Protein backbone atom coordinates (compact mmCIF):
# COMPACT_ATOMS: atom_id res chain seq x y z
CA UNK A 1 0.00 0.00 0.00
CA UNK A 2 1.21 3.43 -0.87
CA UNK A 3 0.49 5.98 1.85
CA UNK A 4 1.61 8.83 -0.36
CA UNK A 5 -1.42 8.21 -2.59
CA UNK A 6 -5.04 8.68 -1.65
CA UNK A 7 -7.14 5.54 -1.53
CA UNK A 8 -9.97 7.34 -3.28
CA UNK A 9 -9.72 10.38 -5.54
CA UNK A 10 -13.10 11.91 -6.34
CA UNK A 11 -13.37 14.69 -8.91
CA UNK A 12 -16.47 16.57 -10.06
CA UNK A 13 -18.81 13.78 -9.07
CA UNK A 14 -22.53 14.23 -9.63
CA UNK A 15 -25.57 12.01 -9.78
CA UNK A 16 -28.81 13.13 -11.41
CA UNK A 17 -32.12 11.41 -10.78
CA UNK A 18 -34.66 10.83 -13.50
CA UNK A 19 -34.45 10.79 -17.28
CA UNK A 20 -31.27 12.66 -18.22
CA UNK A 21 -32.79 13.85 -21.50
CA UNK A 22 -35.48 15.68 -19.54
CA UNK A 23 -34.75 18.29 -16.93
CA UNK A 24 -32.29 16.84 -14.44
CA UNK A 25 -32.65 16.74 -10.72
CA UNK A 26 -29.17 16.62 -9.24
CA UNK A 27 -28.94 14.56 -6.05
CA UNK A 28 -25.36 15.74 -5.65
CA UNK A 29 -23.00 17.61 -7.92
CA UNK A 30 -19.43 18.98 -8.25
CA UNK A 31 -18.06 16.92 -5.38
CA UNK A 32 -14.27 16.73 -5.05
CA UNK A 33 -12.60 14.78 -2.28
CA UNK A 34 -9.57 12.67 -1.44
CA UNK A 35 -9.70 9.89 1.11
CA UNK A 36 -6.45 8.51 2.52
CA UNK A 37 -5.77 5.11 4.03
CA UNK A 38 -6.80 5.05 7.69
CA UNK A 39 -8.83 8.24 7.41
CA UNK A 40 -12.41 8.66 8.62
CA UNK A 41 -14.46 11.18 6.66
CA UNK A 42 -17.89 12.29 7.88
CA UNK A 43 -20.48 13.63 5.46
CA UNK A 44 -23.03 15.72 7.35
CA UNK A 45 -26.14 17.63 6.39
CA UNK A 46 -29.89 17.54 6.83
CA UNK A 47 -32.13 15.06 5.06
CA UNK A 48 -32.36 15.98 1.40
CA UNK A 49 -28.89 17.53 1.39
CA UNK A 50 -27.55 14.85 -0.95
CA UNK A 51 -25.30 13.04 1.49
CA UNK A 52 -26.85 9.60 0.93
CA UNK A 53 -26.84 10.15 -2.83
CA UNK A 54 -23.14 10.99 -2.61
CA UNK A 55 -22.49 7.81 -0.62
CA UNK A 56 -24.42 5.84 -3.24
CA UNK A 57 -22.40 7.35 -6.07
CA UNK A 58 -19.06 6.79 -4.32
CA UNK A 59 -19.89 3.18 -3.49
CA UNK A 60 -20.98 2.45 -7.08
CA UNK A 61 -24.55 1.77 -6.02
CA UNK A 62 -25.70 4.76 -8.08
CA UNK A 63 -24.32 5.63 -11.50
CA UNK A 64 -22.10 8.67 -12.02
CA UNK A 65 -23.77 11.25 -14.23
CA UNK A 66 -20.60 13.35 -14.13
CA UNK A 67 -17.08 13.14 -12.79
CA UNK A 68 -14.62 10.41 -11.96
CA UNK A 69 -13.57 8.22 -9.04
CA UNK A 70 -10.09 6.77 -8.92
CA UNK A 71 -9.29 3.99 -6.45
CA UNK A 72 -5.92 2.65 -5.35
CA UNK A 73 -6.09 -1.15 -5.30
CA UNK A 74 -4.31 -3.31 -2.74
CA UNK A 75 -1.32 -3.84 -5.10
CA UNK A 76 -0.86 -0.05 -5.46
CA UNK A 77 -2.44 0.35 -8.88
CA UNK A 78 -4.81 3.28 -9.43
CA UNK A 79 -7.96 2.35 -11.34
CA UNK A 80 -10.85 4.39 -12.66
CA UNK A 81 -13.93 2.78 -11.12
CA UNK A 82 -16.12 3.57 -14.12
CA UNK A 83 -13.81 1.49 -16.30
CA UNK A 84 -13.87 -1.63 -14.13
CA UNK A 85 -15.88 -4.63 -15.25
CA UNK A 86 -18.83 -5.73 -13.14
CA UNK A 87 -16.86 -8.79 -12.07
CA UNK A 88 -13.98 -6.59 -10.87
CA UNK A 89 -16.39 -4.39 -8.89
CA UNK A 90 -17.95 -7.50 -7.31
CA UNK A 91 -14.47 -8.66 -6.36
CA UNK A 92 -13.81 -5.30 -4.66
CA UNK A 93 -17.01 -5.75 -2.65
CA UNK A 94 -15.91 -9.22 -1.53
CA UNK A 95 -12.38 -8.26 -0.49
CA UNK A 96 -11.80 -4.50 -0.28
CA UNK A 97 -15.02 -2.73 0.60
CA UNK A 98 -17.81 -2.89 3.14
CA UNK A 99 -21.14 -1.13 3.47
CA UNK A 100 -22.90 -0.68 6.80
CA UNK A 101 -26.57 0.17 6.28
CA UNK A 102 -28.69 2.28 8.58
CA UNK A 103 -31.14 -0.59 8.90
CA UNK A 104 -29.26 -3.80 9.80
CA UNK A 105 -31.93 -5.85 8.02
CA UNK A 106 -30.62 -4.39 4.73
CA UNK A 107 -27.11 -5.70 5.37
CA UNK A 108 -27.79 -8.99 7.18
CA UNK A 109 -29.50 -12.21 6.32
CA UNK A 110 -32.07 -12.02 9.07
CA UNK A 111 -32.99 -15.72 9.20
CA UNK A 112 -29.46 -17.09 8.90
CA UNK A 113 -27.51 -17.68 12.13
CA UNK A 114 -25.17 -14.98 13.46
CA UNK A 115 -22.22 -17.29 12.80
CA UNK A 116 -23.45 -17.82 9.24
CA UNK A 117 -23.78 -14.06 8.69
CA UNK A 118 -20.16 -13.51 9.69
CA UNK A 119 -18.82 -16.70 8.07
CA UNK A 120 -20.47 -16.21 4.69
CA UNK A 121 -18.13 -13.42 3.46
CA UNK A 122 -15.15 -15.62 4.38
CA UNK A 123 -16.54 -18.51 2.34
CA UNK A 124 -17.10 -16.11 -0.56
CA UNK A 125 -13.35 -15.44 -0.63
CA UNK A 126 -12.47 -19.12 -0.57
CA UNK A 127 -12.45 -20.30 3.05
CA UNK A 128 -13.51 -23.95 3.00
CA UNK A 129 -12.70 -25.39 6.41
CA UNK A 130 -15.91 -25.26 8.48
CA UNK A 131 -14.05 -25.29 11.81
CA UNK A 132 -11.88 -22.32 10.80
CA UNK A 133 -14.85 -20.31 9.53
CA UNK A 134 -16.76 -20.96 12.75
CA UNK A 135 -13.75 -20.05 14.90
CA UNK A 136 -13.24 -16.80 12.97
CA UNK A 137 -16.96 -15.99 13.28
CA UNK A 138 -16.84 -16.65 17.04
CA UNK A 139 -13.81 -14.38 17.39
CA UNK A 140 -15.60 -11.58 15.54
CA UNK A 141 -18.76 -11.95 17.61
CA UNK A 142 -16.58 -11.47 20.65
CA UNK A 143 -14.92 -8.41 19.13
CA UNK A 144 -18.28 -6.78 18.55
CA UNK A 145 -19.43 -7.79 22.04
CA UNK A 146 -22.05 -10.36 21.07
CA UNK A 147 -22.05 -13.34 23.48
CA UNK A 148 -20.54 -16.28 21.62
CA UNK A 149 -23.33 -18.56 22.85
CA UNK A 150 -25.65 -16.66 20.47
CA UNK A 151 -23.63 -17.85 17.45
CA UNK A 152 -26.40 -20.19 16.27
CA UNK A 153 -29.23 -17.69 16.76
CA UNK A 154 -30.55 -15.66 13.83
CA UNK A 155 -30.35 -11.84 14.00
CA UNK A 156 -34.14 -11.70 13.82
CA UNK A 157 -33.97 -12.64 17.55
CA UNK A 158 -31.40 -9.87 18.33
CA UNK A 159 -31.92 -6.34 19.68
CA UNK A 160 -31.30 -3.37 17.37
CA UNK A 161 -27.88 -2.66 18.85
CA UNK A 162 -26.80 -6.31 18.55
CA UNK A 163 -28.00 -6.46 14.94
CA UNK A 164 -25.97 -3.39 14.10
CA UNK A 165 -22.87 -4.83 15.76
CA UNK A 166 -23.39 -8.05 13.83
CA UNK A 167 -23.61 -6.10 10.59
CA UNK A 168 -20.30 -4.46 11.44
CA UNK A 169 -18.69 -7.87 12.10
CA UNK A 170 -20.05 -9.20 8.79
CA UNK A 171 -18.45 -6.23 7.02
CA UNK A 172 -15.09 -6.26 8.77
CA UNK A 173 -14.40 -10.01 8.89
CA UNK A 174 -12.65 -9.98 5.49
CA UNK A 175 -10.41 -7.00 6.53
CA UNK A 176 -11.68 -4.49 3.98
CA UNK A 177 -9.71 -1.30 3.28
CA UNK A 178 -12.67 1.03 2.78
CA UNK A 179 -16.02 0.95 4.56
CA UNK A 180 -19.06 3.06 3.72
CA UNK A 181 -21.48 3.70 6.57
CA UNK A 182 -24.95 5.20 6.18
CA UNK A 183 -26.25 6.59 9.50
CA UNK A 184 -25.12 3.46 11.37
CA UNK A 185 -26.23 4.68 14.80
CA UNK A 186 -29.35 6.69 14.07
CA UNK A 187 -31.97 4.03 14.74
CA UNK A 188 -30.61 3.23 18.20
CA UNK A 189 -31.18 4.38 21.78
CA UNK A 190 -28.63 6.88 23.07
CA UNK A 191 -26.84 4.44 25.40
CA UNK A 192 -26.67 1.80 22.65
CA UNK A 193 -25.41 4.47 20.25
CA UNK A 194 -22.51 5.43 22.53
CA UNK A 195 -21.42 1.82 22.84
CA UNK A 196 -21.60 1.27 19.08
CA UNK A 197 -19.69 4.47 18.32
CA UNK A 198 -16.97 3.53 20.75
CA UNK A 199 -16.77 0.11 19.12
CA UNK A 200 -16.56 1.60 15.61
CA UNK A 201 -13.94 4.08 16.79
CA UNK A 202 -11.66 1.44 18.29
CA UNK A 203 -12.04 -1.03 15.38
CA UNK A 204 -11.31 1.69 12.84
CA UNK A 205 -8.11 2.68 14.68
CA UNK A 206 -7.02 -0.90 15.26
CA UNK A 207 -7.57 -2.01 11.67
CA UNK A 208 -6.45 1.26 10.02
CA UNK A 209 -9.68 1.39 8.02
CA UNK A 210 -10.67 4.21 5.72
CA UNK A 211 -14.30 5.11 6.35
CA UNK A 212 -16.84 7.40 4.75
CA UNK A 213 -19.68 7.84 7.21
CA UNK A 214 -22.89 9.70 6.46
CA UNK A 215 -24.60 11.15 9.51
CA UNK A 216 -26.96 13.96 10.39
CA UNK A 217 -25.57 13.88 13.94
CA UNK A 218 -22.65 16.28 14.42
CA UNK A 219 -21.71 14.55 17.69
CA UNK A 220 -21.11 11.33 15.75
CA UNK A 221 -18.90 13.21 13.31
CA UNK A 222 -16.93 14.77 16.18
CA UNK A 223 -16.39 11.50 17.98
CA UNK A 224 -15.12 9.36 15.13
CA UNK A 225 -14.09 11.39 12.08
CA UNK A 226 -10.87 13.17 11.15
CA UNK A 227 -12.44 15.31 8.44
CA UNK A 228 -15.96 16.51 7.74
CA UNK A 229 -17.81 17.54 4.59
CA UNK A 230 -20.94 19.64 5.05
CA UNK A 231 -23.55 19.23 2.33
CA UNK A 232 -26.53 21.36 1.38
CA UNK A 233 -28.71 21.18 -1.73
CA UNK A 234 -26.47 18.54 -3.28
CA UNK A 235 -23.26 20.56 -2.91
CA UNK A 236 -20.34 20.48 -0.49
CA UNK A 237 -20.47 23.89 1.18
CA UNK A 238 -17.69 23.45 3.72
CA UNK A 239 -15.01 20.88 4.46
CA UNK A 240 -11.98 20.51 6.67
CA UNK A 241 -10.66 19.09 9.89
CA UNK A 242 -13.69 17.96 11.89
CA UNK A 243 -13.00 19.99 15.03
CA UNK A 244 -12.26 23.10 12.93
CA UNK A 245 -15.52 22.77 10.97
CA UNK A 246 -17.54 22.26 14.16
CA UNK A 247 -15.77 24.79 16.43
CA UNK A 248 -15.19 27.60 13.93
CA UNK A 249 -17.68 27.03 11.10
CA UNK A 250 -17.28 29.47 8.22
CA UNK A 251 -20.31 28.89 6.03
CA UNK A 252 -23.67 30.34 7.09
CA UNK A 253 -25.36 26.95 6.86
CA UNK A 254 -22.69 25.21 8.97
CA UNK A 255 -23.07 27.93 11.61
CA UNK A 256 -26.80 27.24 11.62
CA UNK A 257 -26.27 23.47 11.95
CA UNK A 258 -23.76 23.85 14.79
CA UNK A 259 -25.90 26.38 16.64
CA UNK A 260 -28.88 24.04 16.42
CA UNK A 261 -27.27 21.31 18.54
CA UNK A 262 -28.97 20.78 21.88
CA UNK A 263 -26.47 21.14 24.69
CA UNK A 264 -26.58 17.99 26.81
Amino acid at each position, binding site marked *: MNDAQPLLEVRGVGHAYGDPSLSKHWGCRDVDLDLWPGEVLAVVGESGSGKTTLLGALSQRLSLTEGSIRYQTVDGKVVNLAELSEAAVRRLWRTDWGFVHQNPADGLRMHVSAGGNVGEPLMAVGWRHYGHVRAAAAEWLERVEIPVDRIDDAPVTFSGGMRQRLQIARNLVVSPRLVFMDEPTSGLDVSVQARLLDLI*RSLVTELGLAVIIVTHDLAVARLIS*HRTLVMKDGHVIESG*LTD*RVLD*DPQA*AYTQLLVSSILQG
Partner: protein
Amino acid sequence: MNQPILAVSGVDKTFTMHLQDGQRLPVLHELAFEVRAGECVAFGGASGAGKSSVLKMVYGNYAVTRGRVILQGRGGAVDIATAGPRQVLAARRDTMGYVSQFLHCVPRVGAVQVVAEPLIERGIPAPEARERAARLLARLAIPERLWSLPPATFSGGEQQRVNIARGFITDLPLLLLDEPTASLDARNRDVVTELIQEKRAQGTAILGIFHGVEVRGAVADRVVDVELFAAVSGAVA
Protein backbone atom coordinates in the same frame (compact mmCIF):
# COMPACT_ATOMS: atom_id res chain seq x y z
CA MET B 1 20.72 29.04 15.78
CA ASN B 2 17.89 28.60 18.27
CA GLN B 3 15.04 28.72 15.75
CA PRO B 4 11.62 29.42 17.24
CA ILE B 5 9.39 26.36 17.42
CA LEU B 6 6.43 28.64 16.86
CA ALA B 7 6.50 31.94 14.97
CA VAL B 8 3.20 33.81 14.67
CA SER B 9 3.18 36.93 12.49
CA GLY B 10 0.64 39.34 11.04
CA VAL B 11 -2.27 37.29 12.33
CA ASP B 12 -5.80 38.67 12.22
CA LYS B 13 -8.84 36.89 13.57
CA THR B 14 -12.32 38.03 12.64
CA PHE B 15 -15.48 36.05 13.32
CA THR B 16 -18.27 36.45 10.80
CA MET B 17 -21.65 35.77 12.39
CA HIS B 18 -23.86 34.70 9.53
CA LEU B 19 -26.79 34.15 11.84
CA GLN B 20 -26.62 37.84 12.84
CA ASP B 21 -26.87 39.22 9.31
CA GLY B 22 -23.22 38.52 8.60
CA GLN B 23 -22.02 40.82 11.36
CA ARG B 24 -18.23 40.86 11.51
CA LEU B 25 -16.52 40.63 14.87
CA PRO B 26 -12.83 41.53 14.61
CA VAL B 27 -10.88 40.19 17.60
CA LEU B 28 -7.18 40.32 16.79
CA HIS B 29 -5.08 42.39 14.43
CA GLU B 30 -1.42 41.94 13.43
CA LEU B 31 -0.69 39.52 16.25
CA ALA B 32 2.98 38.53 16.36
CA PHE B 33 5.09 36.53 18.83
CA GLU B 34 7.56 33.64 18.96
CA VAL B 35 8.17 30.72 21.28
CA ARG B 36 11.51 28.88 21.46
CA ALA B 37 12.51 25.50 22.85
CA GLY B 38 12.52 25.37 26.65
CA GLU B 39 10.69 28.67 26.89
CA CYS B 40 7.33 29.25 28.55
CA VAL B 41 5.27 32.13 27.15
CA ALA B 42 2.08 33.19 28.92
CA PHE B 43 -0.78 35.21 27.48
CA GLY B 44 -2.03 38.24 29.33
CA GLY B 45 -5.15 40.28 28.75
CA ALA B 46 -8.70 40.47 30.00
CA SER B 47 -11.28 37.79 29.47
CA GLY B 48 -12.61 38.09 25.93
CA ALA B 49 -9.37 39.54 24.55
CA GLY B 50 -8.88 36.42 22.42
CA LYS B 51 -6.32 34.40 24.41
CA SER B 52 -8.07 31.07 23.87
CA SER B 53 -8.68 31.94 20.23
CA VAL B 54 -4.93 32.30 19.69
CA LEU B 55 -4.25 28.86 21.19
CA LYS B 56 -7.01 27.39 19.03
CA MET B 57 -5.60 29.00 15.87
CA VAL B 58 -2.14 27.61 16.66
CA TYR B 59 -3.67 24.15 17.16
CA GLY B 60 -5.58 24.39 13.86
CA ASN B 61 -8.90 24.30 15.68
CA TYR B 62 -9.87 27.84 14.61
CA ALA B 63 -9.38 29.24 11.14
CA VAL B 64 -6.77 32.00 10.79
CA THR B 65 -8.28 34.97 8.98
CA ARG B 66 -4.93 36.36 7.83
CA GLY B 67 -1.25 35.90 8.64
CA ARG B 68 1.21 33.12 9.32
CA VAL B 69 1.50 30.51 12.07
CA ILE B 70 4.80 28.77 11.36
CA LEU B 71 5.37 25.62 13.35
CA GLN B 72 8.82 24.06 13.26
CA GLY B 73 8.34 20.31 13.29
CA ARG B 74 10.88 17.50 13.17
CA GLY B 75 10.15 17.09 9.47
CA GLY B 76 10.34 20.82 8.61
CA ALA B 77 8.19 23.91 8.95
CA VAL B 78 4.46 24.06 8.31
CA ASP B 79 2.17 27.10 8.19
CA ILE B 80 -0.85 26.05 10.22
CA ALA B 81 -2.80 29.03 8.83
CA THR B 82 -2.88 27.45 5.38
CA ALA B 83 -2.11 23.77 6.08
CA GLY B 84 -4.56 21.10 4.96
CA PRO B 85 -6.28 18.76 7.43
CA ARG B 86 -3.72 15.97 7.06
CA GLN B 87 -0.80 18.34 7.72
CA VAL B 88 -2.54 19.69 10.83
CA LEU B 89 -3.21 16.15 12.09
CA ALA B 90 0.44 15.23 11.47
CA ALA B 91 1.57 18.34 13.38
CA ARG B 92 -0.71 17.37 16.27
CA ARG B 93 0.74 13.87 16.29
CA ASP B 94 4.40 14.86 16.02
CA THR B 95 4.84 18.47 17.14
CA MET B 96 2.17 19.98 19.36
CA GLY B 97 -0.08 18.94 22.22
CA TYR B 98 -3.03 20.82 23.67
CA VAL B 99 -4.59 20.74 27.11
CA SER B 100 -8.04 22.25 26.95
CA GLN B 101 -10.05 23.60 29.87
CA PHE B 102 -12.32 20.58 29.89
CA LEU B 103 -11.90 16.89 29.28
CA HIS B 104 -13.77 15.72 26.21
CA CYS B 105 -14.85 12.37 27.51
CA VAL B 106 -14.87 9.31 25.36
CA PRO B 107 -17.75 7.18 26.62
CA ARG B 108 -16.93 3.86 28.29
CA VAL B 109 -13.14 4.29 28.29
CA GLY B 110 -11.37 4.06 31.67
CA ALA B 111 -9.15 6.87 33.01
CA VAL B 112 -5.85 4.98 32.64
CA GLN B 113 -6.71 4.17 29.05
CA VAL B 114 -7.77 7.79 28.36
CA VAL B 115 -4.36 8.97 29.58
CA ALA B 116 -2.38 6.17 27.88
CA GLU B 117 -4.08 6.56 24.47
CA PRO B 118 -1.84 9.37 23.12
CA LEU B 119 1.20 7.13 23.70
CA ILE B 120 -0.43 4.03 22.22
CA GLU B 121 -1.42 6.04 19.14
CA ARG B 122 2.25 6.93 18.74
CA GLY B 123 3.39 3.32 18.84
CA ILE B 124 4.36 2.85 22.51
CA PRO B 125 3.40 -0.70 23.64
CA ALA B 126 0.14 -0.64 25.63
CA PRO B 127 1.53 -2.07 28.91
CA GLU B 128 4.31 0.54 29.04
CA ALA B 129 1.85 3.31 28.09
CA ARG B 130 -0.55 2.28 30.86
CA GLU B 131 2.29 2.08 33.36
CA ARG B 132 3.35 5.63 32.54
CA ALA B 133 -0.29 6.75 32.67
CA ALA B 134 -0.69 5.19 36.11
CA ARG B 135 2.41 7.01 37.40
CA LEU B 136 1.06 10.37 36.20
CA LEU B 137 -2.39 9.74 37.65
CA ALA B 138 -0.79 8.84 40.98
CA ARG B 139 1.27 12.00 40.89
CA LEU B 140 -1.87 14.03 40.24
CA ALA B 141 -3.54 12.35 43.25
CA ILE B 142 -6.24 10.44 41.35
CA PRO B 143 -7.15 7.55 43.71
CA GLU B 144 -6.20 4.16 42.28
CA ARG B 145 -9.74 2.85 42.67
CA LEU B 146 -10.87 5.32 39.97
CA TRP B 147 -8.26 4.40 37.37
CA SER B 148 -10.32 1.82 35.53
CA LEU B 149 -13.53 3.91 35.57
CA PRO B 150 -14.58 6.27 32.76
CA PRO B 151 -13.90 9.89 33.85
CA ALA B 152 -17.39 11.07 32.85
CA THR B 153 -18.57 10.45 36.42
CA PHE B 154 -15.57 12.11 38.14
CA SER B 155 -15.64 15.51 39.86
CA GLY B 156 -14.65 18.57 37.82
CA GLY B 157 -11.22 18.76 39.45
CA GLU B 158 -10.56 15.05 38.91
CA GLN B 159 -11.59 15.29 35.27
CA GLN B 160 -9.26 18.22 34.79
CA ARG B 161 -6.36 16.26 36.31
CA VAL B 162 -7.07 13.32 33.97
CA ASN B 163 -7.07 15.85 31.15
CA ILE B 164 -3.71 17.26 32.29
CA ALA B 165 -2.23 13.76 32.56
CA ARG B 166 -3.40 13.00 29.02
CA GLY B 167 -1.84 16.23 27.74
CA PHE B 168 1.47 15.86 29.59
CA ILE B 169 2.15 12.18 28.91
CA THR B 170 3.62 12.75 25.44
CA ASP B 171 6.95 14.46 24.73
CA LEU B 172 6.18 16.89 21.93
CA PRO B 173 8.19 20.02 21.06
CA LEU B 174 5.30 22.43 21.79
CA LEU B 175 2.65 22.25 24.49
CA LEU B 176 -0.41 24.54 24.48
CA LEU B 177 -2.11 25.00 27.83
CA ASP B 178 -5.53 26.60 28.27
CA GLU B 179 -5.91 27.36 32.00
CA PRO B 180 -4.65 23.97 33.17
CA THR B 181 -4.91 24.87 36.85
CA ALA B 182 -8.27 26.66 36.84
CA SER B 183 -10.26 24.13 38.87
CA LEU B 184 -7.49 22.68 41.03
CA ASP B 185 -6.71 22.98 44.73
CA ALA B 186 -3.35 24.40 45.91
CA ARG B 187 -1.65 21.01 46.24
CA ASN B 188 -2.54 19.89 42.71
CA ARG B 189 -1.71 23.34 41.35
CA ASP B 190 1.80 22.83 42.70
CA VAL B 191 2.05 19.42 41.02
CA VAL B 192 1.04 20.94 37.67
CA THR B 193 3.54 23.77 38.15
CA GLU B 194 6.25 21.14 38.70
CA LEU B 195 5.16 19.21 35.61
CA ILE B 196 5.40 22.38 33.52
CA GLN B 197 8.87 23.14 34.88
CA GLU B 198 10.02 19.59 34.10
CA LYS B 199 8.75 19.89 30.53
CA ARG B 200 10.62 23.16 30.10
CA ALA B 201 13.80 21.61 31.45
CA GLN B 202 13.46 18.89 28.81
CA GLY B 203 13.31 21.58 26.11
CA THR B 204 9.56 21.66 25.48
CA ALA B 205 8.27 25.05 24.35
CA ILE B 206 5.15 26.03 26.29
CA LEU B 207 2.48 28.54 25.35
CA GLY B 208 -0.29 29.00 27.83
CA ILE B 209 -3.07 30.85 29.52
CA PHE B 210 -2.65 30.59 33.28
CA HIS B 211 -5.29 31.18 35.86
CA GLY B 212 -3.85 33.41 38.58
CA VAL B 213 -0.60 35.37 38.69
CA GLU B 214 0.95 32.92 41.16
CA VAL B 215 1.17 30.02 38.70
CA ARG B 216 2.05 32.36 35.86
CA GLY B 217 4.87 33.89 37.87
CA ALA B 218 6.22 30.46 38.74
CA VAL B 219 6.33 29.08 35.19
CA ALA B 220 6.41 31.87 32.59
CA ASP B 221 9.52 33.51 31.14
CA ARG B 222 7.54 36.16 29.29
CA VAL B 223 4.03 37.49 28.99
CA VAL B 224 2.48 38.39 25.63
CA ASP B 225 -0.35 40.85 26.23
CA VAL B 226 -3.01 39.94 23.71
CA GLU B 227 -4.81 43.25 24.29
CA LEU B 228 -1.97 45.06 22.49
CA PHE B 229 -3.18 43.29 19.36
CA ALA B 230 -6.87 43.97 19.81
CA ALA B 231 -8.68 44.69 16.58
CA VAL B 232 -10.66 47.91 16.45
CA SER B 233 -13.99 46.64 17.65
CA GLY B 234 -17.34 48.25 18.24
CA ALA B 235 -19.48 49.33 15.35
CA VAL B 236 -18.08 48.00 12.11
CA ALA B 237 -19.82 49.41 9.12
